């Protein structure tokens, strides 16, 4: 009996404590909102937002609703995270491998790169790129072309845009490629497990990726045109680039800072993963007669990836959360558009901040759930 009380009493006290705090907050919030004449509710989401957003992936203007402004912000957050994740992975793998190089200079340059970018606060890096480095770029009329058709100016990076005809056929062909690669790789795996034969999956896939979409250009009537940005004079002194896609400098500064900063952490994950493979594994593989390529593909990589992927996903998650620093340089991400402008206009502090937090929370929890599932799947099953 005594034991039971010992177990239940602390739990009851904790629950009461937590409920008490929540109750206290709710009571105060109710009181405050009554006094200021604010009512709680999510009805404002359907109202007209009447503010403009500089950069948006979907069509948006002041006449759209707050819900659509939320979507614009979310898409911008996802866009900057997606681009940065790609770059930070490439840089991270290069520098992670370089840190294990036998070359003294390469090893130490990579180490200094990691130490340098890891130890400066991300916000300062974003400010540096945005306010100091990108401001040194030329004005539109003086910008020379990069790679012939793109222009890097103080107002942003202008790249040609694609104009497709029959885009859907092209997309179907890509879908077909993905499906056939999955089928081939499953078949190859089965073949190897049953008969020990190997087929060059990588080269077959590579061929498919180029061949099938290229076929649609000849047979399916798909064609691709480029709209190249061209200098246009607005008035005597002001020029802009017309046509093509203009990437705003905020986006460039964010992508630079986020990918350089996160790539140092990815590099450490990659290094730890490769170092985590015992020397004996490689020697054992070599002694059963595998070639160096086969050792890498069949023995080292599958084990290294098991160590690398979980912490790297964690870093991707951090990157996505860190992309909220966009608000500091006025890139219209979720925090700036929704928790900034929309909050100022509606004054619905509780609703808007909770929605913003819940959005980030659900992204994190979703990725964490996928990671747990993946870890369970690849974990070494010991008898």
């Amino acid at each position, binding site marked *: 009996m005594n034991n039971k009380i010992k177990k239940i009493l602390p739990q009851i006290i904790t629950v009461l404590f937590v409920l008490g705090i929540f109750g206290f907050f709710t009571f*105060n919030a109710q009181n405050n909102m009554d006094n200021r004449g604010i009512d709680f509710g999510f009805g404002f989401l359907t109202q007209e937002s009447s503010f403009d957003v500089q950069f948006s992936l979907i069509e948006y203007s002041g006449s759209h609703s707050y819900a659509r402004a939320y979507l614009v912000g979310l898409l911008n957050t996802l866009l900057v995270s997606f681009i940065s994740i790609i770059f930070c992975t490439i840089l991270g793998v290069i520098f992670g491998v370089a840190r294990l190089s036998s070359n003294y200079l390469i090893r130490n340059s990579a180490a200094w790169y990691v130490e340098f970018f890891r130890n400066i*606060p991300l916000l300062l890096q974003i400010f540096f790129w945005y*306010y100091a480095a990108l401001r040194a770029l030329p004005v539109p009329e003086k910008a020379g072309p990069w790679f012939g058709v793109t222009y890097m100016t103080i107002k942003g990076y202008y790249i040609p845009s694609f104009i497709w005809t029959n885009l859907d056929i092209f997309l179907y062909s890509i879908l077909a490629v993905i499906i056939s690669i999955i089928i081939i790789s499953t078949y190859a795996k089965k073949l190897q497990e049953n008969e020990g034969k190997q087929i060059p999956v990588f080269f077959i896939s590579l061929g498919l990726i180029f061949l099938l979409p290229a076929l649609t250009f000849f047979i399916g009537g798909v064609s691709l045109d480029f709209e190249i940005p061209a200098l246009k004079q607005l008035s005597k002194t002001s020029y802009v680039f017309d046509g093509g896609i203009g990437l705003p400098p905020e986006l460039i500064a964010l992508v630079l800072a986020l990918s350089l900063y996160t790539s140092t952490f990815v590099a450490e994950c990659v290094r730890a993963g490769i170092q985590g493979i015992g020397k004996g594994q490689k020697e054992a593989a070599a002694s059963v007669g595998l070639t160096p390529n086969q050792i890498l593909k069949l023995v080292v990589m599958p084990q290294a990836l098991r160590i690398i992927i979980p912490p790297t996903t964690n870093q991707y998650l951090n990157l996505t959360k860190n992309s909220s620093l966009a608000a500091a340089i006025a890139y219209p991400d979720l925090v700036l558009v929704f*928790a900034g402008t929309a909050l100022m206009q509606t004054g619905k502090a509780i609703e808007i901040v909770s929605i*913003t937090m819940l959005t980030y929370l659900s992204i*994190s929890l979703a990725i964490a759930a996928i990671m747990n599932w993946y870890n369970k799947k690849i974990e070494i099953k010991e008898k």
Partner: protein
Amino acid sequence: MNSLNFLKSNKQNFYYFLYLGLFLFSISILDVAINAFLKINITSFLPGILSIFLPLILGFVGLNFIRTEYSGIKSLDIINKNINTNNFNAILTLLIIFAIIKATPPSLSWMIFDANISGDTKEACTGTGACWTYVKVWFRRFMYGMYPNDLHWRINLAFILVIALGFFGFFLRDNLKKYLALYYVIIYPIIAFLVIYYLISGGAFGLVWVETGAWGGLSLTFIVSFFCLIFCFPLGMVLALGRRSSLPMIRYISIGYIEFWRGVPLITVLFMSSVMFPMFLPEDFFMDKLVRVIIAITLFEGAYCAEVIRGGLQALPRGQYDAAKSLGMGYWKMHIFVILPQALKLVIPGICNTFLALVKDTPLIFVVGLAELAGMLALAKTNPKWLGFAMEGYIFAAIIFWIICYAMSKYSYNLEAKYKTER
């Protein structure tokens, strides 16, 4: 490959190849160095592309000549083993050396030779290099924010006192050592808080009151991260124990708390503290913005701290728990005297890393209008008298933060190495 054999040395002509290789290699370095430092292109008589790639080709051939398995010459073997193992490495080596040589003169002349530091106004900056005058003039603002100039000694004194009190524990007599944990977890934070409150805020003992809005610069970074650290540590400890508790309700509440704060970005937490939190307080109850921010960051970092401490608790072998239980210790006795002292020792490097992340996160308080170093830079950058020196300001701040963070990461790395060998 047999046809290329004449390119490789053998025992007879080894020294010819060695001298030729070293000669070519030094010529390539010399060419790049002259090009970078004196801006003279000695190979300008060659056609364009060849003139650019000539040092690379020469250096590559040179390195190829001196590459041997074993020469017996010590310094040559060290070079071959470390930077010249194969063709790919040789090219990368050359590219890195060239990049360093090329980058040295412009950065040195911008940072030092063409830079200005004299004078007190923008007009003193006449050179093409950096204008360190800007940093010199604004230095006090960057360090102390808008805090009145003649009262800066109060901030300095407060920091010296807090640091001195932090080292106080080392000089305790042996029979008082058992109270060390008590001192650091409870007494020290309280004393530090009182020192900082009464010295920096003033308002008592004849000191002039300075409102928190005037605090800023690097000292604010230190104040915020210091308080967040000492408060988030006990919070993290409680949550870590809660997460490992056998009582389901306590465990679920701890998990929910930890996962919630770890799932949201700090910037939304700060937004919450500045716009949402006042709504949750009683109507006539005013809480200073700085205090709200410190509470928000503490709650946030507490969750990360909890995960680090949980790692330490999990790393302890089960035998420790069993042994403590078999001696008849209860839950609290077991944790206070057996588990926590060992676990906390294990997690010191991890805590150090959390603190490092905390220091790197503090500039974010800029978004809710507190002017620590990044905020002061933004302020100075838009001052009409000092337009156009953003680069110098950010480089100055980056150097300061880099030194702090690098020292901390090295320290935590050393601690990690130290504790690893002890176990």
